[in-house]
């Protein structure tokens, strides 16, 4: 269960040097750690607990409270599909269904080829372009099921090239 000893913990040193002694920085540290490792491996959480003087229970509690944090690795591309009110009204459910069928995954899962992870989010704040999704840093608006699938296929094609 514990994957201790697998991660290169020296990568954390800079972040810990900057924030470990600053009160209330646990969330910031975990955010930076996730940027480094792509997710929050258990040994990293232990290291953070040790360096910040928190109990592992507290670190785990925080890491599992916020939806931004992931305890398992994600695919190469993270699809964040907005399920906000405007997106709901404008057909986000159908878009989600199309994406799930295309990638053969459910919300929170990663495709078999490791390329895409799907995560539905509460609201991306781009309501006027609804339905919306974000893939990595890019936002795609006014989606239809077909358009969403096309975007995914294009990214996949780009990776293959």
């Amino acid at each position, binding site marked *: *269960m*514990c994957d201790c000893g697998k991660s290169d913990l020296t990568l954390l040193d800079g972040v810990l040097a900057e924030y470990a002694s600053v009160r209330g920085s646990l969330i910031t540290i975990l955010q930076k750690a996730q940027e480094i490792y792509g997710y929050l491996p*258990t040994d990293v*959480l*232990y290291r953070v607990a040790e360096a910040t003087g928190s*109990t*592992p*229970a*507290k*670190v*785990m*509690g925080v890491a*599992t*409270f916020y939806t931004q944090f992931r305890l398992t690795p994600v695919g190469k591309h993270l699809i964040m599909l907005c399920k906000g009110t405007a997106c709901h009204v404008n057909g986000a459910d159908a878009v989600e269904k199309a994406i799930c069928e295309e990638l053969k995954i459910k919300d929170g899962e990663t495709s078999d080829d490791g390329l895409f992870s799907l995560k539905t989010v509460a609201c991306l704040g781009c309501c006027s372009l609804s339905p919306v999704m974000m893939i990595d840093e890019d936002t795609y608006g006014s989606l239809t099921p077909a358009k969403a699938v096309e975007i995914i296929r294009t990214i996949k094609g780009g990776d293959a090239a």
Partner: protein
Amino acid sequence: MADMIRFHINGKEIACEKGASILDAAKANGIEIPNLCYLKDLSPYGACGMCLVEAAGSPKLLRACSAKAAEGMEIFTDSGRVMKARKIALELLMSDHSGDCIGPCKLNCPAHTDCQKYLAQIAEKDYEGAVATIKDKVPLPASIGRVCPHPCETACRRQHVEEPISIAFLKAYAADRVLASGNHVLGEKAAPTGKTVGVVGGGPAGLTAAYQLALKGHAVTVYDKMPQMGGMLRYGIPEYRLPKAVLDQEIAEIASLGVELVNGCAMGKDITLAELREKHDAVLIANGAWKSASIRCPGEELEGVFGGIDFLREIALGGKPAIGKKTAVVGGGNTAMDACRSAVRLGAEEVSIIYRRTRAEMPAEDVEIKEAEEEGVVFRFLTNPAEIIGEDGKVKAVKLQVMRLGEPDERGRRSPVPVEGEFLTLELDSIIIAAGQKNDPAGFEDLPVTKWGTILADEHTYATALPGVFAAGDATNKGASIAIAAIAEANEAAKHIDAYLAGIELPYHEPVYSEKELSPEMFDREKAPRAVMPQRAPEERNKDFKEINLGFTEEQATAEAGRCLSCGCHDYGHCKLIQYADDYCADCKRLKGDHHPGFQETRLVSIERDQGKCILCGLCVRVCEDQAKKGILGLVGRGFNTVVKPEFNDAAVIGACIDCKLCAENCPTGALKIL
């Protein structure tokens, strides 16, 4: 001196220090406000929603644990709105509280005998403790342990692993051990009350009521028409199943409490109900159902036709009914089994069972059917007497209608239908009709009866229409049933008679408890087969009436008791959640939905945790952090999926646990158990 303020709770003026919470101020003045997540030394948390109170002029309900008392406030802790809010909070909590408050054995026992507790006592060889536990509900454990069709075992969860625990025989084992030791385990007897109770009928119901009422300090007299006490246990159950010497010892124990036993006293003949009412402060009618029911078949009046109950009684009285060489017993229940096996023992050469359904539908216990087969009884399924054929006024044969099973009825039971024109004839010397029992209302003409002719009694208090007259057991309501059901009614009736004698009325509401949903993984554990009761060989035992079971060895008994899965919650009786749920009559099932699965795991040094029972009050997490200063437990996840966990489930981290047990001690439910 601190600033004092004055305010009102439920109209009563209260003074407290400024800054005190409403909850603390109330408590200091003897007003309890319920709470599940509050602990005096911790800062208020506000999770459970139990301490909600109403403040005059405030549209919102306040949390008494955090809201500060203020000068002139008008607080109501029991207004309709508050009670409703708490009730629904409890219903919500119970809807995500997965656990068995009470083990299925105890729940399914009509008398709610605490099987789980006495099994644990037997496993630890505390036989006297076990007998004390049993006698709380069943004052005849050695007898009942031998004859009870044990609904407890029917419900026993161990059957989902392999086979149910042999609960009934373990009961008998413990009781036999204690009887053999010469010690008498009896409940504590209260000081004499000066009240007297007359009990009509010395069977399981009457004796149980006598025991319970004697313990309460009342003077009890039991009246019975038969020469000896014991009722159907003595006259309806053959010696080979229940040696009367065992029954005698248990009756003697009850008598030792000062219960007066009057035999040979028939109602309506030797004494009347009016006389009893005159003589005693209260009367309990528990005279059973002693008449064999008819099967409405031509020829029932012939010589050689016996009623099942009458047949067994005659043997018990020392007689030897003339059944000849070939006999048949009509019926498929336990009385039919007792009758056919007794017939075998009387020397009949051919004994048949005539039953209109198939083996699968037989109400008799499986083991009895098996034992009867072993002893040579022939089963003629799907047959029904059409006519008993006589010659010279004596039974000669029976004409049997061949039956088949029809479509299942609404209860799923397939009723037999005749196969037109198909009959069999069976040559017989006698026939025993064991197709049910009826009560005899003689002597109780003053009491209203049900449509079945039984005495009508209140189903909770067992009071009849006559003040001070109660009725329980086979003679009442739905009629004849098993001994433990009569005992259960007698316990309840005794409770209400005691209350009646004290001039109070006990309120009744359905008990509130939680039941767990079963899942296969709960039973994924090492198999250990059920203990086999050593028995005399069939060809030896079918020749006499000596007891066929030889009894467990101690090794067998303790191992068997150790198979118990301990389904019932260890915290039942202390659990604040269920106590409140009961107080507020919360409907535990109304808001049913998705819930946390229940499972046991040991993570901390000596604490066992069951997530299914956790109500997320956060007390364990907070005492671990604030009082033990360890912070080992934490909340993981969010919203409905939140769980309490020692971090990462990692042994190294758990090693930091100092085993202070504060977490479990403060758990308001049974989620944390000290091992």
